[in-house]
């Protein structure tokens, strides 16, 4: 493994510590400040009921006014934004300082078999996706050719591993969370599993551990993320097929996969695209097949302060669809499409991971 130089490493470790402080000490104080406000109890009761997006906007506006009375909350948000920017402001130069080493490694370990990486240079990027600087990364997923090492050696271990950003709670173990989500498949005799919006090989890698004999297929729009996933998969012998495709129109045949896993995807697409994706996954699932989704929780499932925090990501951490996604009811959408035995629940505190799962009728 290639490590960062001292300046890059220490700078990113500082970001991890600052985010941890902001998400624990300042966040706890903000919770206490909010609870002491006269409107807190009524807001909490109001937030329990499911309503449409326009009512959520109005509710969130009122809750934000109350939440922002807290000085701790205002500083918490300042640090969250600062760390969000600095992740890239520090990690890109730190990764560039090791460019030659990374390129040598990639050349030495380059996969020999490209049959499991199917890129489509003619694929038209959907307008809702193109040009978004996801998570404040300049150029988005495909803006930086060393995105994968930047996360693997920098932002991942030094910042994200401590939690405390977006829906991810502080001090949680994001690796264990992924494994627990895959464990939510009630069906355990899988032959083929598909992941829409797979990014790299992280979730399908966990599927490989839990379903050693299943055929694994991941689809995504980003060629950079697919190349990274393929590189890791081939290096570790995970035997995953990666395909560049739009998850509303995938290449799988009708009734061809037993399981669909969707991890942190739907908050990164408009609700109408989520609905099309769910319909497409329903189409490819075999009768009796199951879909498990993990995404940030809906506003109705968290307290008003957490809802304001989630809503904040939309305008402040380049998550243009976060609020729209948290306003819809995925479980209801799945039932309307035809899924049965639909359930939704949180695996940990503050509502994340938020699991929604359902089966295609046998």
């Amino acid at each position, binding site marked *: 493994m290639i490590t960062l130089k*001292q*300046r890059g*490493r*220490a*700078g990113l*470790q*500082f*970001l991890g*510590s*600052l985010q941890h402080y902001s998400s624990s000490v300042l966040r706890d104080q903000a919770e206490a400040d909010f609870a002491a406000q006269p409107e807190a109890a009524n807001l909490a009761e109001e937030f329990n009921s499911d309503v449409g997006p326009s009512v959520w906007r109005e509710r969130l506006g009122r809750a934000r006014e109350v939440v922002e009375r807290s000085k701790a909350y*205002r*500083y918490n*948000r*300042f*640090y969250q*934004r*600062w760390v969000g*920017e*600095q992740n*890239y402001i520090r990690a890109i130069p730190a990764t560039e300082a090791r460019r030659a080493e990374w390129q040598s490694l990639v050349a030495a370990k380059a996969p020999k078999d490209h049959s499991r990486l199917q890129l489509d240079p003619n694929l038209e990027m959907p307008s809702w996706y*193109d*040009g978004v*600087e996801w998570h*404040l*990364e*300049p*150029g*988005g997923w*495909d*803006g930086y050719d060393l995105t994968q090492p930047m996360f693997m050696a920098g932002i991942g271990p030094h910042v994200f591993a401590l939690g405390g950003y977006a829906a991810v709670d502080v001090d949680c173990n994001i690796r264990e969370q992924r494994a627990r989500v895959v464990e939510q498949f009630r069906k355990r005799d899988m032959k083929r599993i598909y992941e829409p919006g797979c990014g790299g090989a992280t979730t399908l890698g966990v599927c490989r551990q839990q379903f050693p004999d299943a055929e694994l297929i991941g689809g995504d729009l980003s060629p950079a993320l697919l190349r990274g996933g393929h590189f890791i998969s081939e290096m570790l012998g995970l035997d995953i097929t990666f395909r560049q495709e739009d998850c509303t129109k995938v290449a799988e045949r009708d009734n061809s996969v037993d399981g669909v896993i969707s991890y942190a995807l739907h908050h990164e697409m408009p609700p109408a695209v989520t609905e099309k994706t769910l319909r497409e996954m329903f189409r490819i699932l075999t009768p009796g097949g199951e879909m498990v989704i993990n995404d940030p929780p809906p506003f109705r499932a968290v307290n008003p302060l957490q809802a304001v925090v989630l809503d904040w990501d939309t*305008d*402040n951490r*380049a998550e243009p669809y976060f609020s729209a996604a948290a306003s819809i009811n995925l479980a209801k959408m799945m039932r309307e499409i035809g899924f049965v035995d639909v359930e939704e629940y949180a695996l940990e505190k503050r509502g994340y991971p938020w699991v929604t799962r359902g089966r295609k009728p046998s």
Partner: protein
Amino acid sequence: MSRTVERPARPYLGQMELDDVMRMNTELLAELWILRDRVTVLEHMLEEKKVVDRKALSDFVPQGELAKELERERSALVNRVAGAPHAKSYDFETLAKQAEIG
């Protein structure tokens, strides 16, 4: 595809200038940590090579000329930082006297 991330227009701390000052403060805190990390790593490496003893370094009390040098540097730093909001003008003579200070 755009490759530029813009700052949001709305300040987090009630006023854009306050956000600016906090950005400077937090940037300096990051630099301070990077330096402390480096010094700690440096001490560790020097001790491993038996060049310095970290306990002796902690127990060391500067005396004589070294103590005077540190005092001069410390006072200059305090004057520069604490005095920054109060300095109304500067002149060649005052600046020239700082030539010996690191």
